[in-house]
């Protein structure tokens, strides 16, 4: 409430689910709409993807076939939580690269 009037917060410190920074995402979409263009790859940023200087967190448009996130999706390293149930969550993780000759 203090720092960002867009984000609704609890009265006291309560951890909630990640909202995938919906307010920032929506602003990105609206800006692009105002300019009459598609959202560029890398334009979508969330608080965590912004904060990480090493680029470990990537946030993007999975419908855009050329975006970084789509590539990560097709990568063999990608997996999701409880993948076998088939719910296809929007958050995907990458398997850690271990010390091996094949990378």
């Amino acid at each position, binding site marked *: 409430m203090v720092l960002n009037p867009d984000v609704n917060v609890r009265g006291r410190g309560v951890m909630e689910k990640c909202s995938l920074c919906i307010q920032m995402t929506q602003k990105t979409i609206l800006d692009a709409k105002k300019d009459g263009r598609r959202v560029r790859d890398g334009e979508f940023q969330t608080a965590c993807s912004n904060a990480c200087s090493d680029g470990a967190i990537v946030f993007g448009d999975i419908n855009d076939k050329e975006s970084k996130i789509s590539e990560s999706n097709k990568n063999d390293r990608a997996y999701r939580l*409880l993948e076998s*149930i*088939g*719910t296809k969550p929007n958050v995907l993780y990458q398997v850690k690269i271990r010390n091996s000759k094949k990378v």
Partner: protein
Amino acid sequence: MSSHYEAPIRKPLILGDKSYHDISNDIARPVETPPDKDWWIAFSIAMAAFLWGLGCMAYTLGTGIGVWGLNKTVGWAWDITNFVWWVGIGHAGTLISAVLLLFRQKWRMGINRSAEAMTIFSVIQAGLFPIIHMGRPWLAYWMFPIPNQFGSLWVNFNSPLLWDVFAISTYLTVSLVFWWTGLLPDFAMIRDRAVDPFRKKIYSLISFGWSGRAKDWQRFEEVSLVLAGLATPLVLSVHTIVSFDFATSVIPGWHTTIFPPYFVAGAIFSGFAMVQTLLIIMRKVSRLESYITIQHIEMMNIVIMITGSIVGCAYITELFIAWYSGVEYEQYAFLNRATGPYWWAYFLMMSCNVVSPQIMWVKKIRTNIIWSFVISIVVNVGMWFERFVIIVTSLHRDYLPSSWTMFSPTFIDIGIFIGTIGFFFVLFLLYARSFPVVAQAEIKSILKSSGEKYKKIRDKK
């Protein structure tokens, strides 16, 4: 020549030396005489329970769902358990009216009116829950596909919760209509006997001008048959759709294809048990033992026994498939049910639903009123626990152990449940004194074939 013949081996469905006039008198008596002290005592208890429940519901409405015992892991508990329990109870009434009509089972006639009434009242109770379990029940109309100003934001037709909305609404309204058309000739009977002008006015209004013309009867029979034909698949489909609320999810213990037949059999099982409870009390209180005979009670017990066995088979199938599939989530779900923190609920469920109906194989027990009454209550309790076990044990421990938690009901949860039981009995008690509780027109049509006096005359020949 209309045949009034019935095989002598069939037990009479109307006992005693009843004539047509006796039937009219017996059935109109509770309607035409003021209620006695017992009725008032029962009514006050039911009313008190109802008002308590109403208060709890108002508190929930005003303060929010947080007053219930629900949490993030166990998102559904007593609310949906009660919903499914009441809907299940409702199915027996339609079955007795509709399915037994199609199978030409004459024994339905003594019990179908009250069974249908029970259906309507229990579906009303069931319908309360989807509404009060919403966070903002005043927006309940958003569940319907009505064009609106939000860019015409529509409902999601892929969702089983919405299928439920349509199914329960259809079921409630069609049952109501079926029941009311059956009641028209009986209301007319009371109207014609009525001396008090106010009573006469009311009953004329609700009998829709029934005159007993042959054409009326022809239409009556045909409408009954068509509605019965429509209501039968309705019974099956409505509880199937309720089972889809669970079966279409991914939760272990819910996502199984056995749910539709299992739920339908369970519904018939608990419904007949409730009909049994109500009728055993009513026949004594309203002195209708000649119309609701031991034969009727026995037939209903047989149905309870059969559907109880089907439910038992379903339990065993679930356990077998959980083991055979090798899916560890499914296996754990059942292991948890039997040995986890809610094991006591599971064993209550098993003993009430599987073990107790089996004693009905003994003829002495299934023709005994006290035993029938006891078992009907036991089955009702058992079926409530079945729904509780399915919902809460599957939810409180599903895929991710980090989310595992316990559930315990608050007094509001319990209060609302008691309130619905109170409401149900309020409605039923009122019904018992203002509506003819036995389908007297239909009973009269079988008096000559199945009445004891006439059978005696025929068999003596």
